[in-house]
């Protein structure tokens, strides 16, 4: 008898379907598996055989052939175990053959027949949903991931016998099998659980304002300052003011975390924007993603969130240069011999660095670094990378006495409200463009949405001449000015917004006064 069961795998961060076919026929008692299989898929044979036996099904002494198609696609991972077991049982007519037709089945088997969790359930189910599949059986601990999708019923399986009982339509009166449900709205009301708050940071008015602008328009930001001035502390506060995630954004992020296996057990969705702060020893592959079959790296894990690089010049040069393309294209393509993989990487880059090796420049009372030492240190960060940074703020150290006697500072909640308003304005304005933030505006869109009156235009041109800005810098200033205008609730970009945008646009080494 022949049977077919639908299963899936991931390609990059997208799911795709794999058909598991099984045939039981007369002949020598052999269990054959074919279909361009990786080592862990070939090992499935032993797992499935033992799991079936330990669940009370014995394999008949007949010729069993299992094929995973399409046969030209290299298959890896342990996602197919459950589907293989079900396909064999179906071919043996222990499950009615038409019962499995409308399901997609995912899951790894352990030797005693338990169903174990796998990575990438959400992308696979999301693909199945788009293909019109109505029902899915997934490992119980991954079931919540799939439950956020509408139009597909997701069943969480604890063990193989449970799955067989369900597919054979045997009713278990004590514990009926119900699809997992989840209230998506409720997930988002929980809010971000960040501990750091802007009210804990004393002074630093200019830097805080810079972070507010960066968060509102999703602009990249560089902080420069002496050690202990509060760069990392300010960075930790960023999640507390970021605009809330939309469901689509949230699903995009969850897919990536699902593929990488970083979702916590029983976690349905990632509901707050990611904040990734990798250590500076990280390799370029860890940043971009890599491996024979590439898995997402830090840049993708920070998708729709913040990638914080502390001590920027300490990062390996090649690791930093890897960021250039994703910073422009908002995604990353890795090519391998057999295929190329595209990962989303639309993150907000926040970097922090000292201005010189000792960290105290330009305070010459403390900094004894020579001009050439400072220059060498600053040029560790390449100009092309700096060009991609919209805002640059300097953090100065606040005297300890001042920390004790400061008036109340604004809380993150107050700032977040303004950010959320600015975000809402951008969302409405760009509803037809398919973008969410000012930082994503292309040059042609800039002309449409950031037009200046003749007076403001002349002012900006003067500034361009005075400070010798490049064309790229000009566009970055316009984008930042647009965000500042949004924060102020203005329809048009005014001169004061341009002034502010110019002051924050200084990530230019030439401008560091080190000739």
């Amino acid at each position: 008898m022949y049977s077919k069961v639908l299963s899936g795998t991931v390609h990059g961060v997208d799911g795709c379907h794999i058909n598991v076919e099984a045939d039981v026929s007369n002949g020598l008692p052999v269990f054959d598996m074919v279909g361009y299989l990786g080592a862990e898929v070939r090992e499935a044979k032993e797992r499935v055989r033992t799991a079936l036996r330990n669940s009370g099904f014995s394999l008949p002494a007949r010729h069993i052939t299992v094929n995973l198609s399409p046969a030209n696609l290299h298959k890896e991972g342990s996602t197919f175990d459950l589907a293989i077991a079900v396909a064999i049982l179906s071919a043996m007519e222990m499950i009615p053959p038409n019962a499995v037709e409308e399901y997609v089945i995912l899951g790894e088997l352990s030797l005693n027949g338990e169903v174990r969790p796998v990575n990438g359930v959400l992308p696979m189910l999301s693909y199945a949903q788009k293909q019109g599949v109505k029902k899915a059986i997934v490992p119980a601990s991954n079931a919540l991931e799939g439950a956020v999708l509408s139009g597909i019923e997701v069943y969480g399986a604890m063990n193989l016998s449970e799955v067989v009982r369900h597919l054979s339509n045997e009713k278990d009166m004590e514990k009926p099998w119900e699809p997992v449900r989840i209230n998506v709205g409720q997930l988002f009301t929980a809010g971000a659980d960040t501990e750091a708050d802007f009210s804990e940071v004393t002074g630093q008015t200019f830097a805080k304002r810079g972070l507010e602008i960066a968060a509102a328009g999703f602009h990249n930001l560089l902080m420069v300052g002496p050690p202990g001035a509060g760069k990392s502390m300010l960075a930790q506060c960023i999640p507390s003011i970021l605009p809330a995630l939309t469901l689509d954004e949230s699903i995009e992020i969850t897919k990536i975390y699902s593929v990488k296996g970083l979702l916590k057990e029983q976690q349905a969705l990632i509901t707050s924007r990611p904040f990734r702060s990798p250590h500076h020893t990280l390799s370029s592959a860890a940043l971009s993603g890599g491996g024979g079959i590439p898995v997402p790296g830090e840049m993708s894990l920070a998708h729709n969130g913040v990638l914080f690089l502390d001590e920027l010049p300490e990062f390996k040069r090649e690791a930093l240069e890897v960021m250039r393309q994703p910073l422009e294209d908002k995604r990353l393509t890795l090519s391998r011999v057999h295929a190329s993989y595209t990962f989303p990487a639309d993150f907000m880059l926040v970097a922090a660095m000292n201005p010189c090796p000792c960290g105290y420049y330009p305070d010459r009372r403390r900094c004894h670094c020579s001009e050439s030492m400072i220059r060498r240190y600053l040029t560790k960060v390449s100009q092309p990378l700096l060009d991609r940074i919209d805002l640059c703020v300097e953090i100065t150290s606040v005297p300890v006495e001042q920390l004790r006697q400061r008036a109340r500072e604004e809380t993150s909640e107050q700032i977040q409200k303004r950010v959320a308003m600015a975000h809402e304005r951008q969302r409405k304005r760009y509803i037809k463009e398919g973008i969410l933030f000012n930082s994503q505006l292309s040059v042609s869109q800039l002309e449409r949405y950031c037009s200046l009156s003749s007076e403001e235009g002349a002012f900006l041109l003067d500034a361009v001449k005075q400070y010798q800005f490049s064309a790229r810098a000009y566009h970055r200033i316009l984008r930042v000015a647009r965000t500042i205008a949004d924060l102020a609730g203005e329809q048009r970009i005014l001169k004061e917004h341009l002034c502010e945008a110019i002051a924050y646009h200084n990530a230019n080494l030439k401008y560091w006064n080190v000739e």
Partner: protein
Amino acid sequence: MDRQEELLYWLWLCNMEGVGHRTIDMLLGQYKHPRQLYQAKESELSCWLKGRKLTQFLKSRDMDRIKRLMERLAKQNVRFLHRQHEDYPNSLRHLEDAPFGIYVRGALPPKGARSIAIVGARQADEYGCSVASYFARELSNKGICVISGLAHGVDSAAHKGAIEASGYTLGILGCGINICYPKENASLFRAVEKQGGILSEYGLNVPPKAGLFPLRNRLIAAMADGILVTQARERSGSLITVDQGLEQGKDIFSVPGRIGDALSEGCNSLIQSGAKLVTGVWDILEEWGWEKKIEQKILNHSDITLVNIEKMVYSVLGFEAKYIDIIIEETGLSVAQLLPVLIELEQRKLIRQPRPNYYCVCV
């Protein structure tokens, strides 16, 4: 003996490896003129020179090498002046250990003009640099030559100030005449050469070495009539220049700093030990016989018409560059209110940004 030939002998004298200044001075005492020294017999010389020194001396007597050297100097627009040359600066002749020859690019200071050496810390802050360029500019306007060492910090600021005022400025090097040290100052080197001159007692390709700079400082002191220190630490190379200047009887001026300010400790202790405290150019000009006409302040706030908010912002700024956060705190304005004012003031050239988002007043 024609002038060209004489020049060659002197050039040989200055390019003798392994034979020191003192030995040459002693030999010159014996032989009067470098040509006679050049032609001296080995047997005669052995009374004065022994062993390695003698072989080095004999080896250096290679006229072809000297001629080639002369051509290379000419190619690089370097003039060589020896002690008996009529263009050799008189102020150097009085020096006890005056160089036998000097190398010059550009022009030497005009004869009879007064000159001031402006020196100070390489790692000066905005205050030290602003003041240096202010004095350089104002003194240049009065026709006074500005001399300094073409180093980072105060030196650079002084040269730039003089260039801004189109005055004569002389840079004295502690390395070979064709070596640009520090490299970052390459454009300043060109500007100084064009509008003044560069002088060194070291020939082509002599690398900068720590030991050469104190020797360079004695030339700075000798070439100037007065020495102005704008910012110096307790133990600073600028104080060597001052010591040399005191020995040579020059006027010493010093710009005061705040007490407890490490960058100005040297200046303050100079004032304690008798240097003249200066707060403006007239304090120097007065010393040199200029008649003081009007009371002139460095910063004249009352002359500038500003609207209220601009006045408030301008009034919290000084010589020292202030970071924007401090300005926000002192004025109580928000970032959005403050920036248009700062940019307006900057465009009117009343204030400037020495570094991004640091502001100080223009003087």
